């Protein structure tokens, strides 16, 4: 679809870029939020093989390859991979994560091989990632660190609010100087060392540069991170670097290199679901948490995070020390209690009990299968107008059939199988 479409709607996208080069939103809209697809003239013609994304139909007309089945096949592969890993051992997941995102803003970040520049692409997707991360890990905390002129600088404190992080990142977008992996690791190590032992300490480094200018021996720093059980992952933007690979292997993180912008986005979002817990932490321990309530309307108090006078309805009251906080989840400034709301806990739940992958049902022509006419979830027909059944899937537990769109929706967003749930409600 994009192989062909990208060429035709090109003038409009180009025009929008010219009109307002800084406006990322507009670009997103033009390209349907799918990430930027290379324009026809930007691609190496021999490598892309755009002609292969065309196929001939019965009457000899050219039409693009059925992207829907392709996308679905890709998604199934990912899903099966994930569930296979989960099935191999009942993996404990680190649900309470303390993640520092390190963004390299050295000279190399101004390179133009990603358009408009590596830095802009990284910032754009980091923003999307932070939102997605909090969506999937409501109990977790994120902080931002930048590397610039060979010095690592903490942009934001580790915290639970996506908005403040994104705001801080977007305000500081300029790049210069060298980059230093060791300085960044040292800084992050200093902060993460204080994190309570039940939290999973992670660093995600978005690295544009191809080298690192370090003041000392980086292998010592890596050993230090390993000792404090900080999981370091790196996403490179240009090529594989030995020291990054070494760092990830030592600390149990993942090292990936992006091919292009859409691949970069994909790699980044892979870090959103919680990683398997490190074996040493597998012993379960109880964590004290508070479930604060919204304050009453007439109660006026000073919130502990912004030091501003607020009415009770704008914040939550810590159940232990009765202090007012604005956002959840967070840690109480006064008594140090972890404050969450029950929906946050519930949203983390599906990582532990995922919906099993559905089986594919091969289309059988000219035979009506029982219960196979409509998708159980969206109630649309599973048949083409010409009487042939489309490719669709079946839940192995309740044997209900679903269309491909619903399959993706159930596994990616809903995290519950409608068939199984309705059976349960009937049984009870």
């Amino acid at each position, binding site marked *: 679809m994009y192989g062909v479409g990208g060429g035709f709607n090109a003038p409009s996208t180009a025009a929008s870029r010219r009109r307002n080069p800084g406006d990322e939103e507009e670009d997103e809209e033009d390209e349907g939020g799918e990430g930027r697809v290379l324009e026809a003239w930007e691609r*190496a013609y021999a490598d892309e093989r755009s002609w292969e994304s065309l196929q001939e139909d019965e009457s000899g007309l050219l039409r693009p390859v059925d992207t829907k089945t392709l996308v679905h096949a890709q998604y199934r592969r990912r899903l099966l991979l994930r569930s296979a890993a989960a099935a191999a051992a009942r993996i404990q997941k680190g649900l309470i994560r303390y993640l520092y995102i390190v963004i390299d803003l050295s000279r190399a970040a101004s390179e133009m091989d990603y358009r408009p520049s590596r830095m802009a692409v990284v910032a754009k997707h980091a923003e999307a990632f932070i939102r997605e991360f909090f969506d999937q890990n409501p109990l977790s905390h994120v902080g931002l660190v930048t590397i610039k002129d060979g010095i690592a600088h903490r942009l934001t404190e580790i915290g639970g609010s996506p908005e403040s992080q994104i705001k801080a990142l977007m305000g500081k977008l300029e790049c210069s100087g060298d980059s230093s*992996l060791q300085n960044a690791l040292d800084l992050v190590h200093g902060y993460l060392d204080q994190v309570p032992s039940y939290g999973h300490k992670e660093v995600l480094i978005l690295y544009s540069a191809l*080298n690192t200018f370090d003041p000392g021996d*980086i292998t010592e720093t890596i050993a230090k991170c390993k000792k404090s059980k900080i999981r370091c992952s790196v996403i490179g933007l240009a090529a*594989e*670097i*030995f020291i990054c690979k070494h760092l990830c292997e030592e600390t149990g993180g993942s090292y*990936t290199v992006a091919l292009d912008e859409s691949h970069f986005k994909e790699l980044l979002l892979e870090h959103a679901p919680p990683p398997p817990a490190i074996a040493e932490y597998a012993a379960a321990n109880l964590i004290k948490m508070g479930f604060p309530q919204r304050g009453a309307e007439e109660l006026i108090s000073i919130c502990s995070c912004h030091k501003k006078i607020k009415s009770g309805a704008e914040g939550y009251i810590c159940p232990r020390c009765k202090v007012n906080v604005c956002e959840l989840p967070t840690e109480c400034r006064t008594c140090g209690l972890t404050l969450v709301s029950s929906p946050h806990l519930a949203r983390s739940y599906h990582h532990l009990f995922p919906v099993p992958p559905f089986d594919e049902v091969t289309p059988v022509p000219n035979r009506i299968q029982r219960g196979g006419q409509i998708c159980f979830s969206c109630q649309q027909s599973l048949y083409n107008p010409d009487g042939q059944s489309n490719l669709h899937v079946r839940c192995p537990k309740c044997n209900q059939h679903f269309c491909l769109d619903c399959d993706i929706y159930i596994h990616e967003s809903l995290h519950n199988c409608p068939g199984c749930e309705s059976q349960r409600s009937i049984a009870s």
Partner: protein
Amino acid sequence: MPVSFVASIHSQAGIDQKMLRFCYDRLHSLMMTLEITDTDEFMHIQTICDFATLIGTYTRGFSIIIEPYDDRMPDIRDPVIQLSCHDASLAIRPVFDRFETVVITSGTLSPIDLYPRLLNFNPVISRSFTMSLTRDCICPMVLTRGSDQLPVSTKFDMRSDPGVVRNYGRLLLEMASAVPDGIVCFFVSYSYMDGIVNSWHEMGILQDIMQHKLVFIETPDVVETTLALDNYRKACDCGRGAIFFSVARGKVAEGIDFDRHYGRLVIMFGVPFQYTLSRILLARLEYLRETFQIKEGDFLTFDALRQAAQCVGRVIRSKADYGMMIFADKRYSRHDKRSKLPGWILSHLHDAHLNLSTDMALHIAREFLRRMAQPYDKAGSGGKKTLLTEEDLENLAQDGMAM
């Protein structure tokens, strides 16, 4: 010629050929009898005895070259006697005499039909294999032009042209910014390397390169070179990145591997022809023409390309490894030169990579490095099997028997 040399020794010193021939054995038994263990101290007399035995034994295939002056300082008398062997078949003959089956294998035996002539034997089978790789992990390129589209070459009349020097410098600079970890550069000679590094320094290119990577240089001194290599490896290990400048036919080109991150890219600046005015080379060319009917040009090209292949082959030592090779000279795009490269390089040298300019090469390099950084299936699924199991081997053997 050794014959006349022996004759003049006989007439002037009264030592005949037979006496010369046994010098080595005599010294050897003398030292055994005296139970001398510290052989280092007798190194020089051993050299003289070896020399005497060689000229006493062989009448053909050698020549003695006496150079009264050093080329670099023609005013100072500095006589050197050199005994040079022109005939590689002499060295291999004992092997052929002693064994019934001899298998010669190498990664740089090409063109393969020249070797039987040089070594003076008739091969029963001669085969050139391509490499079986799980993925396209080598990326040879022929770079003929700089970014300004002017040709680059180390041909004698072009090598000191500032445009060529600048284009070579820009090439290295661009590559240093796009390639991670280690880069190895080979130059055609020490004097050329000295000259071009000096010019780069004056143009400020070297300083720009140093912003990306540290630069290490091979020298004729072994200790210095070892130290440089050591530090080069350290710089690659710690992520700083480094470039090693080396010379084709030097110590590094012959025996040091730059595998994995120690060499992600090798650039061969120019075609490493031998110094054609050297007396030894002239004598050898004459001998080859008279004895084996090998044309001078053929031998020189063959020798240069073999050296080039030897140099670039340093970066890839296993299937899991990957590396790029840039042949930076317009002469490599000519068919007569290119076709003499070994098959494993030629099979990966796409037509689109034969006539590149610096910016095109940079684009290809970036793409290649990103592709290679992706995780891959080591077992080689998808019908491209590169590692045979025991079963496969048995099947192959049975197939062979059936045929």
